[in-house]
């Protein structure tokens, strides 16, 4: 058990990279303009980051098992379409929400089965399911947006609870849940083991294959959940809305310090990674930096964060 917890320590020592960059961005943008550090703008940044946070949290777990889920963006999109179409057809937001979750869970289980039971490398397995999810999204909607969604869904994104915007509450709850799951349950210990020490898991009697399937299933489920937020934000569902988000999620996880080998993982780092990119984009928009420069800055940020880490880990 202690062997697994100490695996978290090296990750902690790598905090500075993403944290340094985030703090530097916050300071820099605050100095550059008066409108950055206002409650409204900070709330914007957090709300804009919520969907990505919901994807990046389970992605952290998946990457810790030396895997990858490329289908998350497409599954998110398909789930949002399922949600929207169900709500429009039945008039019930609850049924729509369940439909989205079901789609997410279904694909998550499929991914898990392909990786754990058949043994297809995660990159290819999820690349395949990406195509399937994307294809279904296009086929079912014939490329058109789904509209006519009742306002109750939209309120999930625009509403507040005790003056806090609901998306921020959802994001915080998801993080808390993820933290609990990863660091305080046997499932979490299994996730660490799946990346670093599968033998230990088998010896302990747990089914490593079942655990792996659960990891991917959680990923799919979260994508289904995030679909609610995305649909609420657009007040519609579009077959190409979520494309590419999985790469942003993976980058956030890597920037946050979770490495692709040996089962190291740091959930808070992922959160910082997502927020750092959100802050960067927002700050650059406020400064009206030309778009081509924005594109280059995102790349520079990502490399810089890990460069700092690399410097720190050198003796």
């Amino acid at each position, binding site marked *: 058990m202690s062997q697994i917890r100490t695996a978290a320590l090296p990750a902690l020592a790598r905090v500075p990279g993403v944290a340094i960059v985030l703090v530097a961005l916050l300071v820099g943008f605050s100095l550059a303009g008066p409108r950055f550090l206002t409650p409204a703008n900070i709330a914007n940044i957090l709300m804009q980051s919520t969907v990505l946070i919901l994807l990046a949290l389970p992605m952290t777990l998946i990457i810790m098992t030396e895997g990858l889920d490329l289908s998350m963006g497409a599954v998110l999109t398909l789930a949002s379409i399922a949600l929207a179409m169900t709500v429009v057809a039945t008039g019930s937001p609850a049924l729509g929400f369940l439909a989205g979750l079901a789609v997410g869970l279904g694909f998550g289980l499929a991914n898990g089965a392909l990786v754990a039971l058949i043994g297809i490398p995660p990159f*290819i397995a999820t690349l395949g399911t990406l195509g399937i999810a994307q*294809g279904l999204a296009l086929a079912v909607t014939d490329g058109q947006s789904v509209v006519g969604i009742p306002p109750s869904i939209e309120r999930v994104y625009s509403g507040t609870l005790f003056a806090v915007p609901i998306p921020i509450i959802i994001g915080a709850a998801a993080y808390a849940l993820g933290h609990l799951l990863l660091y305080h349950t046997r499932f979490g210990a299994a996730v660490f083991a799946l990346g670093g020490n599968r033998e230990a898991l088998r010896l302990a009697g747990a089914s490593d294959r079942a655990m792996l399937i659960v990891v991917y299933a959680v990923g799919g489920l979260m994508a289904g959940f995030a679909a609610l937020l995305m649909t609420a934000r657009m007040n519609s569902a579009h077959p190409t809305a979520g494309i590419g988000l999985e790469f942003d999620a993976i980058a956030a996880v890597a920037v946050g310090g979770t490495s692709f080998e040996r089962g190291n993982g740091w959930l808070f780092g992922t959160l910082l990674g997502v927020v750092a990119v959100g802050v960067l984009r927002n700050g650059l928009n406020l400064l009206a930096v030309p778009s081509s420069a924005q594109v280059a800055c995102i*790349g520079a940020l990502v490399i810089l964060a890990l460069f700092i880490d690399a410097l720190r880990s050198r003796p």
Partner: protein
Amino acid sequence: MSQMAETRPRLALSRDVLQAFYRLLAAALLCAALALASDAFLTLGNILNVLRQTALLFLMASGLTLVILTAGLDLSVGANIGLSACLAASVIQATGSAGLGVATGIGCGALIGICNGALVAWLRIPSFIATYGMMWMLTGVTYYYMAGETIHGFPPSFRQFGSGYLLGVPIPVYVMVLFLGIGTLFAQRTIWGQQIYALGANPEATRLSGVPVERRLLLVYTFSGAMAGLASLIILARINSAQGDIGEELTLPAIAAVLIGGTSLFGGSGSVSGTLIGALILTLVLNGMNLLQINASWQPLATGLIILLAVGIDTITRRTAP
């Protein structure tokens, strides 16, 4: 320990041959299915088209194969192609010289490869992030440079490179065969090649046995970058124009070609010839969808299913094989 590192590539060779056989079988089955489904498939014109399209995908993915053999990944392939193509196009248009254009394209690609290699080998940044970051930066530079415009119209001597024929066979196919030979010889028959396999399988042991790991990584990424530059020239020659987003959709198919070809993301096993078969399979899928006129909405679905099928069969047979 080092003995194991040396014998491993040779074992990998015979296992690769077996797997290549299964993969070739998959490609052959696909061909047979398409031949039955469409009259146009087995025509000379279509076969040459498929070969030429495969050549392009293969050239993009061949350097990438070596990167993945070292347990790395290069996500900047598409962005590399975009920038190299746009710079080469400018040079050709400004100077009228195809030769200078070719040098620019390959040079730019190689330079990008060197940057990737430096980030991964010396700055120790994980290849996923290093190349992801490079992808964004290169895209930003390309967008800025092209400023929403296109460059079009190249001299016929240059265009032959992509759309010309020699003895009835498209020129890109010759380039493909050339690099298939170079790549396979390098990987299987040179010490450097064997070191690259070893690097991917067991980096620490390889380093301890005296191999200059950083220099090999740099070599591998530079080669991958140069191949991307070469591929960008063929694309330019084919479509006779350059636009900022040329490379955008090319990275994932290139990676898919390598993986379908049997090279493992964990490094240490795979082959350049496998990538050729992977490229062929992907090209056959697109060709088939056009010939059979599969509706636009269903195309990503068909592609995803076939990828899963091809790799699934490969994985299962790999497990049951001796």
